[in-house]
């Protein structure tokens, strides 16, 4: 078989395994970081440093009774978590994760396979990723409406609100870097910033970077925009009736999306997997992703969340005009 095909299959399996594991590990990190910021301990008893808490949570989720409410639409109720988890992983297929490498010939069966940096280097990479993450919002939307629960309905309504608000900002904020690079492929973005820290797009597009981060927080349903399942207001929003494995799939989807947004921010604005001095590219990307992930937890510990009307106000009246102005200025500069 073709070396690239084998490599791509290896990459697919790697991404699925690693990102699912990372989603679990993300919950552990989140609980630890939030605990430390609130002067607590976090999970500490299951395993060394509480690390096996992930396994304990997994066992709990897998062995829970699968409950479907009586009046729920059973088909859509079961489909919704799959949409969230699947779209989160499909979005990752067009995201470059690590530099391309070749498996040494000495290994049996898979020796010589070329593992590409990205599973599918489609030439509309950014559009594909953003579109897939947007399609992932069908998960919460359908889940909330299918479960015959008023909190679920409120959650879906908020999903629609949030979706309509941030999607414009996401699109417009990445438009300016796209104009600079002249391509939609994330590989091209990476290659455009290969010249070290000075060539990162963040220095040319700081406003676009901030706008993209804000929109990314809204896209991944993180504080300060965690409207969909804010417990103090709407119990759990769209996941009110979910439990066990179905709930776990929503969770994995949410954390995969956090990683996707972190990787996107790193690749589009912060140099991707280009080497920084003595730091090799894969480690550089990992460090950037870890920083953006930590930023999400940090912000969650620090800031209160905002109301839905404030989110709409912010996105439509502040962020969108800013993004448009940014695009106009970028366009003028590029023309000159």
């Amino acid at each position, binding site marked *: 078989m073709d070396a690239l095909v084998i490599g791509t299959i290896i990459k697919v399996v790697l991404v699925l395994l690693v990102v699912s594991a990372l989603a679990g590990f993300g919950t552990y990190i989140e609980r630890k*970081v939030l605990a*430390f*910021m*609130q*002067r*607590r*301990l976090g999970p*500490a008893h299951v395993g060394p440093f509480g690390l096996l808490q992930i396994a304990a949570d997994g066992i709990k989720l897998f062995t829970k009774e699968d409950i479907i409410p009586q009046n729920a639409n059973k088909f859509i109720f079961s489909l919704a978590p799959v949409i969230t988890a699947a779209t989160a992983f499909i979005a990752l297929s067009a995201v470059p994760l690590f530099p391309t490498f070749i498996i040494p010939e000495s290994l049996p069966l898979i020796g010589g396979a070329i593992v590409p940096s990205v599973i599918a280097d489609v030439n509309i990479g950014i559009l594909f990723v953003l579109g897939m993450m947007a399609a992932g919002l069908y998960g919460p939307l359908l889940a909330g409406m299918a479960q015959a629960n008023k909190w679920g309905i409120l959650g879906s309504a908020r999903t629609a609100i949030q979706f309509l608000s941030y999607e414009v900002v996401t699109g417009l904020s990445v438009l300016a870097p796209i104009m600079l690079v002249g391509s939609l492929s994330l590989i091209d973005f990476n290659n455009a910033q290969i010249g070290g820290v000075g060539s990162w797009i963040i220095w040319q597009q700081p406003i676009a970077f901030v706008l993209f981060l804000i929109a990314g927080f809204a896209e991944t349903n993180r504080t300060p925009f965690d409207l969909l399942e804010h417990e103090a207001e709407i119990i759990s929003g769209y996941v009110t009736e979910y439990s066990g494995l179905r709930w776990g799939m929503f969770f994995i989807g949410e954390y995969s999306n956090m990683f996707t947004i972190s990787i996107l921010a790193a690749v589009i604005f912060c140099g991707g997997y280009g080497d920084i001095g003595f730091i090799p590219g894969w480690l550089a990307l990992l460090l950037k992703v870890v920083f953006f992930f930590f930023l999400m937890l*940090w*912000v969650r*510990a*620090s*800031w209160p969340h905002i109301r839905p009307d404030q989110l709409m106000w*912010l996105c439509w*009246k*502040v962020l969108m005009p800013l993004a448009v102005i940014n695009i106009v200025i970028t366009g003028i500069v590029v023309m000159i």
Partner: protein
Amino acid sequence: MHEEIIHTNNTSKEKQNYTMLELGSTPAYGWPAFKQVVKRSLSRELFVGLWLTIKEMGKTLFLGGKHTTQYPFEKLPISPRYRAIHNMLRLLESGHYRCIGCGLCEKICISNCIAMETRYDENQRKEVSEYTINFGRCIYCGYCAEVCPELAIVHGGRYETASEQRASFSLFDDMLTPIDVLKQQQEFAGFGSVSPNADAAIKKTPLAY
């Protein structure tokens, strides 16, 4: 804030000096509201919040600023005034139990939960043959400990009283100090005594009000 308030009549509003906080005005329409958002976004308030949490994280991780008490393994000290399961004390010299069987605790118990039987032993001294406290009825009022002339029955600090049997704590021998740990028997400091950490816990009283 520091003006003297005369509490002669709390219902008359004229005599009370309320201090209004300066909350500013809420912007009612577009441009002032926008200016407020810009001011709040760019006035470092958001970053002050971020700095605070990262500082607390550093303190928790490196300076031992954790506030968690890992309860079953660590316990906070309780006050000597706390009234939990009773202890029966022994005489330090002879090791004999202090109770002289006078029956005052049984008499004063307002929930009738102490039951005792006494008899004369061979030296014609009172001996306690039966002594139980029904902890299903005890209200931990402390009268028994207060009335005891010999400081024989006192309240201990054993507040974790979940048990498989009602009788688990209530027999005389269970409450009596074990003879092998007689050296560690704590003398009851008496009602109104202060906590051992009272000096450390004391704080300067704010006198401004």
